[in-house]
């Protein structure tokens, strides 16, 4: 059997178990509501889910601008200039260890429990990895290419526009992908902790009343959004970087994990 077929079988088995285990009573429905029940809840309650999703996604959109815009800009500056790079990059990678989630109570104290605190938290959450990835990516631009452009009499503006920018596109896109994933997680986690609206709030509310199918439906929805965003970004990356080899080294796992 081909690896792909075995993989398909494994996934199928997981889905079947998801349905069969709770139905047979081997696993309580509270722990694991059957797949069909979860989907049925999602369909039946769709207006509620959709409204919550709207809140969450609008927060994500705003935070994305702050996190990715700030991350790309700072990352390009820190990575592109030798002085700040040597001074700051080690500082930033030390700060990377700080568990940012503990900042969320600060955000709610400062901005209240509305959208502002979610946006602020998710922006910070997405900012650091995006910045570090961009700084690392900018440094991978081959200085020889700049020398070559100079030998052809390229002006500084032309070097920026025709060499540095195209060379940075893969970095920018993977920064956007990474930052976007983290911003989604940031907003949802924030809503889970303290909020009055949004998909994370919906999940937590359902959890406190032990409404498992609704918890699973909400988690599934968030997961689908995260995966959908990731796939869409990967597609854009492939489209925009036809020139790069398929096996281009990915960024270090350090920067690639949304938690």
């Amino acid at each position, binding site marked *: 059997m081909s690896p792909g077929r075995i993989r398909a079988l494994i996934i199928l088995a997981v889905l079947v178990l998801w349905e069969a285990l709770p139905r047979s009573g081997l696993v309580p429905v509270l722990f694991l509501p059957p797949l069909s029940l979860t989907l049925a809840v999602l369909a039946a309650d769709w207006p509620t889910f959709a409204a919550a999703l709207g809140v969450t996604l609008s927060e994500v959109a705003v935070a994305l601008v702050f996190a990715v815009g700030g991350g790309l800009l700072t990352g390009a500056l820190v990575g592109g200039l030798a002085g700040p790079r040597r001074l700051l990059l080690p500082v930033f990678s030390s700060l990377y260890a700080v568990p940012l989630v503990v900042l969320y109570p600060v955000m709610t104290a400062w901005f209240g429990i509305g959208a502002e605190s979610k946006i602020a938290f998710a922006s910070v959450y997405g900012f650091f990895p995006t910045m570090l990835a961009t700084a690392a990516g900018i440094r991978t631009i081959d200085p020889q290419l700049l020398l070559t452009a100079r030998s052809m*009499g*390229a002006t500084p503006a032309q070097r920026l526009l025709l060499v540095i920018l195209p*060379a940075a596109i893969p970095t920018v896109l993977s920064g956007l992908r990474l930052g976007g994933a983290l911003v989604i997680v940031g907003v949802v986690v924030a809503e889970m902790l303290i909020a009055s609206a949004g998909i994370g709030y919906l999940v937590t509310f359902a959890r406190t009343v032990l409404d498992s199918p609704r918890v699973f439906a909400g988690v599934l929805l968030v997961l689908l959004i995260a995966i959908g965003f990731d796939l869409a970004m990967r597609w854009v990356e492939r489209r925009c970087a036809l*020139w790069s080899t398929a096996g281009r080294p990915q960024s270090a796992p350090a920067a690639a994990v949304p938690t």
Partner: protein
Amino acid sequence: MQPLAELNRDAAPAPRGMIEVSGLNHAYATRQGPVQALENVALTVGQGRFTVIVGPSGCGKSSLLMMLAGLRAASAGQILCAGRPITAPDPDRVGVVFQEANLFPWLTALDNVAFPLTLRRAPKAERQARARAMLELVGLGDAATRYPHELSGGMKQRVSIARGLVQDPPVLLLDEPFAALDEQTRMAMGEELLRIWAATRKTVVFVTHSLTEAVYLADEVLVMSARPGRIIDRMPVPLPRPRSYEMMASAEFGRLRDRIWQQIKAPAR
């Protein structure tokens, strides 16, 4: 593409492709104090001549080439091309081919070749036509739409040569262009370069550390010493053209090669 016709245009005082270097010195500061990289380098390359600079690694031959390209400033001395000093890159007078082909990975072979014309904001039709003609010249007419990662090392270097020639500069500088290639490709590329040179009659300055390559390609070999880099021999190569692989086995070839070797061989370290 008609480089041959253009060549006869200016016969006057300094031919378009003539290079004159005099009193070139270069020193740079390190933690251990100043290092004299080039010492009193003088050379003249006549219009349409093929000159090879050879020397041990670290002798400053690549630095010298970067200065001819206007990419690096010397501490003292003068570099003239077509009678006018070179102080900054001037792609109208000088084309450069680097050791690594340095193709822009996000551009196709054709767009890479057209890149210098893009910098000049030449009309698109003209860019494409020129670039296509150059790709034909280097024998890559059918690889125009390929990206660099789809090209072999030798093909990349051909694209790079085509790019160096696309603005039809009278001078082509090559910095160890075949050093990263395997031996067979290297031989084939040398032959290819001579063919292109014969077709375009550019003035060529070619830096290498391969003695065989130097003798095989050159009208004249300039031998440089280890640091401080000085020109210690100017050896004409009287072998007839077109050169052929068989010549390498001749006594004459061996004698010329040995003359360079005797001058640059370092005491075993």
